[in-house]
């Protein structure tokens, strides 16, 4: 991208995203292009991070390990669903990911957890996400029993309208009462430590920043 275009992009992004200033947007743009690597600009080819590259970043930088959640995060960033996280999606996504207000984070997390995008987190979806959260006992008869129980417990805690599934309203109310439940079904936000390290590294000296 030539200089002028870059400048314009930076300005647009800074204006629209609420949590980064111009310098930070700049750093993030540089980081993006570093990660994407050498790609010749050609018409019709989208420049962006594909699923693997993005999940790699989540794993290496932010220590995420849950495959399914990481996948959903990618989907959350990739708003236009074209399989690539382009530069705007990158900036807007990180804006919520790193510095979102509670409202923004709630919306983001809910979208991550709502696997089929129907506006509700169903029992099956919960089961799917919590599938591997309990260490399986070799002597247990039904290993899923614990998971099912956990799902019931979560539903009891968060389902305020008692319709057997979590709407956004249910989820929001539950999180407002107990903030710990924000990432109730899996870690889809960075933990504070890696968050701090990322920001310290990226927003310090973008020129020296080679690989994550």
């Amino acid at each position, binding site marked *: 991208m030539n200089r002028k275009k870059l400048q314009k992009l930076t300005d647009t992004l800074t204006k629209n995203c609420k949590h980064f200033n111009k310098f930070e947007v700049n750093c993030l743009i540089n980081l993006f292009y570093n990660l994407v690597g050498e790609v010749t600009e050609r018409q019709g080819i989208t420049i962006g991070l594909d699923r693997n590259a993005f999940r790699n970043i989540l794993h290496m930088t932010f220590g995420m390990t*849950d*495959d399914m959640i990481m996948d959903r995060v990618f989907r959350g960033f990739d708003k236009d669903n074209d399989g690539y996280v382009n530069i705007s999606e990158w900036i807007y996504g990180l804006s919520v990911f790193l510095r979102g*207000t509670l409202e923004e984070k709630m919306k983001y997390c809910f979208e991550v957890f709502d696997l089929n995008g129907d506006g509700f987190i169903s029992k099956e979806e919960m089961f799917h996400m919590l599938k591997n959260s309990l*260490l399986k006992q070799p002597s247990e008869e039904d290993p899923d029993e614990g998971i099912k129980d*956990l799902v019931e417990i979560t539903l009891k805690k968060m389902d305020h309208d008692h319709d057997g599934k979590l709407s956004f309203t249910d989820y929001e109310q539950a999180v407002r009462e107990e*903030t*710990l*439940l924000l990432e109730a079904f899996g*870690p889809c936000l960075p933990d504070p430590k890696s968050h701090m390290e990322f920001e310290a590294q990226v927003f310090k000296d973008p020129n020296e920043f080679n690989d994550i």
Partner: protein
Amino acid sequence: MSKQEVRFSGEWKKREALKEAPKKEEAAALQKALPASGKSVLEKNYINLGKSQMTKRLQPSLNWKATFDFKEHKSLLRDTQEEKHGGRLERSGPPVSPRRSQLVRKSAEKIEEIISESSSESEEDEEPPDHYQEANAGLPSEYWQIQKLVKYLKGGNQTATVIALCSMQDFNLAQETCQLAIRDVGGLEVLINLLDTDEVKCKIGSLKILKEISHNPQIRRNIVDLGGLPIMVNILDSPHKSLKCLAAETIANVAKFRRARRAVRRHGGITKLVALLDCAQNSGEPAQSSLYDARDVEVARCGALALWSCSKSYENKEAIRKAGGIPLLAGLLKTSHENMLIPVVGTLQECASEESYRTAIKAERIIENLVKNLNSENEQLQEHCAMAIYQCAEDKETRDLVRLHGGLKPLASLLNNTDNKERLAAVTGAIWKCSISKENVTKFREYKAIETLVGLLTDQPEEVLVNVVGALGECCQEYENRVLVRKCGGIQPLVNLLIGINQTLLVNVTKAVGACALEPESMMIIDRLDGVRLLWSLLKNPHPDVKASAAWALCPCIQNAKDAGEMVRSFVGGLELVVNLLRSDNKEVLASVCAAITNIAKDQENLAVITDHGVVPLLSKLANTNNDKLRRHLAEAISRCCMWGRNRAAFGEYKAVAPLVRYLKSNDTSVHQATAQALYQLSEDADNCIIMHENGAVKLLLDMVGSPDQDLQEAAAGCIYNIRKLALATEKARYT
């Protein structure tokens, strides 16, 4: 302790009988094999997530007793013994409520420390029996649910753990059954282990639960036994403010017994807690209801809460001061938030019992803020401010500061509000100590406090009475107030209080009655009410402070009573009792008894009686002392006692004279005066003159002839005259 063991093994048998299936599950959960390397990334990551701690966890079981080893039993034993011991020290008087012993001012500071520490100990129930286990055979449903949740805590990843922790909060954690259920299924170990991991969310969730259940005294002890305190102290260093708050609040709940307070200090907790108080006054709102953030003011409040709990121990008071806590506490006093003010004032009030604090408190203008907060609406805050003033007003400058900042008026008006007894005790205590300064007494009279105090002499709990009487005792040092007290009908209730067993109260009452006895009309009332006899019988009280105080009070009584001699003689065995008190070890008692004897001996008949009881040898034995107070009163007693029979010669024979001469070397002029009188009286006997001369009395007395004090001049001169007369007579005899 064996009783507990029996109880536990009984319970264990009961439980074994009840359920097999859950036990198997439990046993299965106990055998956690770490996943082999061939397993998926996710399993491996359980280890990476710091859950390798899992294998290190204590193996919890339904048999609670088994998880605690002998060491724990020993420490439990020590705790109970400490509490009993503390209780015994406490109970050398009558049953005293815990807070009250704070108000006891003893001359031996060390004893006071121990008592103030153990009094807070006696607030703790002494290992109450496990009601829950004894209750009924069937375990409540919460027990099973909690057991399940703890299982998920042990076997789940971070997500499952957080869910289980949130769910656990929904139980009524204030209820003892739930608290003990958590403990009995091994929940405490898991919760504490979670604190030791790196997972912030788990730590937050775990602390939220620990904070609630640690209101239970048994659970507190268990937490300390499991090593929970050092971990919580470390969390105070966390960069996340919400974690700091939770850790501090939990420590505030746990540190309510001595071992816990000590542990906090030993792990550097006091310094860290003091650091929490250092909040920049700009309480900028953090990211809205962020999980990890909290307002600085909130952090400071939690720190103050924890310090308040910890400050009941003497060493912690010192540690707080050394860590620079006082200026920070002073700064926080300036806020207007009551829930911040209460722990801050509470801490200051605890610590103000130490002299080192009082100096710093003066410097930091804390008194001003304390006075300001006396006017608050919050009763608890008023109570703590008054207590703090009570502690600090030992010091004269502070008493003046209280007056200068207008603190006396609110104190006086709070006297009218008698419903809240704790507050009333604190307020009366503050008034008592402030009354030590005369200017304050004048103010109190202006505010009609004295009348109100007299009204409080009846129908009040002991904690209040001690202070009310103390205050009246100080006020009655002034003539007008004595009259006022009499006119309000205060003499009768005061005399009624002479019957009692509370030592501090008795000391204060005798002082007050003694002060009133200086006024002749009041003395008549006291006499009529048989007050002198009551005072006299207090000479038999086992406690030396009471004896001494009663003896001091008797002096004005004897001076001012009509037919004093007759009155004294009417107390059967009374004179013998007084003379025998001269055998005491306690200097204060001795001084006061000498003063009493001086007064008794004004009546010739009584002087004869006490001489028969052997007062001369007993007084002579005391002569070798360096204590100026004792010296003075002893010398006065000796001068009086010389005026009977051959007592003068007897004092010489019992070797009282030589030590007396040495008294003249003291720095205290009242000692000089009394001694000169005594020597003058003694010098009527020739042998005594010789002894005085040999001991170099003349030179010392010559110095005193030039003294500005006329009585001293006369006595000294008279003594020298006698010595010279003898010398001259001897010379004359030699030349004839």
